[in-house]
């Protein structure tokens, strides 16, 4: 009666060929954890450390919306936004300004997360060739959404397995942050379907 869709993120493998395409609905809650490693495990291993005089980051995540089934004609007009709430002093989640190629035929926009496990991920603008700038995710709210592009044929999602292009998201922690697990935040994909 309608499309079924899910949040996914890719990890592992090699550039252009992710090792795993992870449906977050199979995880948690919580369903996504930013950590200093490139996996989908929801645990307390490889946290982002707080080190005096240093900035530390999670490994980046390639996030997207994917159709998993249903009867429908098409999905388009996809947007992303957050609840606009930050995690407090010294903690920010950044989203790359570019939408990177991701469709049933190609994951050319994917680059494997890099860094030092347990210490820090490589900063996305510096380390990801597809990202030239980044924006704090709290910039995007229900009244100021981020456009998400589609590189499937016709720039629509019209079959199971179809997916949006990637957005790349990374957590950054300054030495002014406080330790501990962070509260859940609500991030949303909005789309039109018929």
């Amino acid at each position, binding site marked *: *009666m309608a499309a079924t869709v899910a949040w996914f993120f890719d990890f592992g493998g090699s550039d252009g060929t992710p090792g795993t395409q992870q449906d977050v609905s199979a995880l948690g809650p919580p369903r996504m954890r930013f950590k200093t490693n490139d996996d989908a495990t929801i645990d307390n291993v490889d946290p982002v450390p707080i080190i005096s005089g240093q900035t530390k980051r999670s490994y980046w995540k390639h996030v997207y919306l994917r159709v998993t089934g249903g*009867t429908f004609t098409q999905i388009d007009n996809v947007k992303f936004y957050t609840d606009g709430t930050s995690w407090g002093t010294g903690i920010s989640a950044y989203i790359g300004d570019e939408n990177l190629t991701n469709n049933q035929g190609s994951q050319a926009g994917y680059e494997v997360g890099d860094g030092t496990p347990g210490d820090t991920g490589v900063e996305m603008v510096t380390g990801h060739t597809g990202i030239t700038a980044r924006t704090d995710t709290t910039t995007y709210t229900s009244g100021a959404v981020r456009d998400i592009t589609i590189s499937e044929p016709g720039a629509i999602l019209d079959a199971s397995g179809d997916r949006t292009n990637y957005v790349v998201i990374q957590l950054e922690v300054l030495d002014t942050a406080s330790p501990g697990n962070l509260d859940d935040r609500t991030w949303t994909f909005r*789309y039109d379907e018929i």
Partner: protein
Amino acid sequence: MGFYWRAIYKDGSQLSQIEKNEKGETVKENLYPDIDRSRLTEFHLIYSARDIPIVKIHLRPGQKLIARRRTWNDWHGNSTVVWLIGWHQTIKVGWWKKRNIQMLAFVFPDGHIEIVDRFYKDHPVFDPLEKMRPEEL
């Protein structure tokens, strides 16, 4: 509340998104492009649980139907659907000037309906959609 659409043609026949048998079981699903717009006169949004229309759009010549399920899907797994049904039309406002006018009804999950006269860019709900070719004037 769940909904589905039903298209009513000029000769009284209809095409329903969901076709059911005598037992109320879904036997077929039709798609939005299956609607024959050349014969369309009304478009209804049906409340699934009781199979009754809660919104009826009456279409006059020149008015093009627009319909969508606008969905919010958060990473916690929560999903909210607002149906948009309405029409748009180009009218003459002078000797050579034309203007696009719209009537849009947004049907919320609790059943309440909000009607607006156009899309509002960057509005959390009434943001513009991307028109499909059959919807273009």
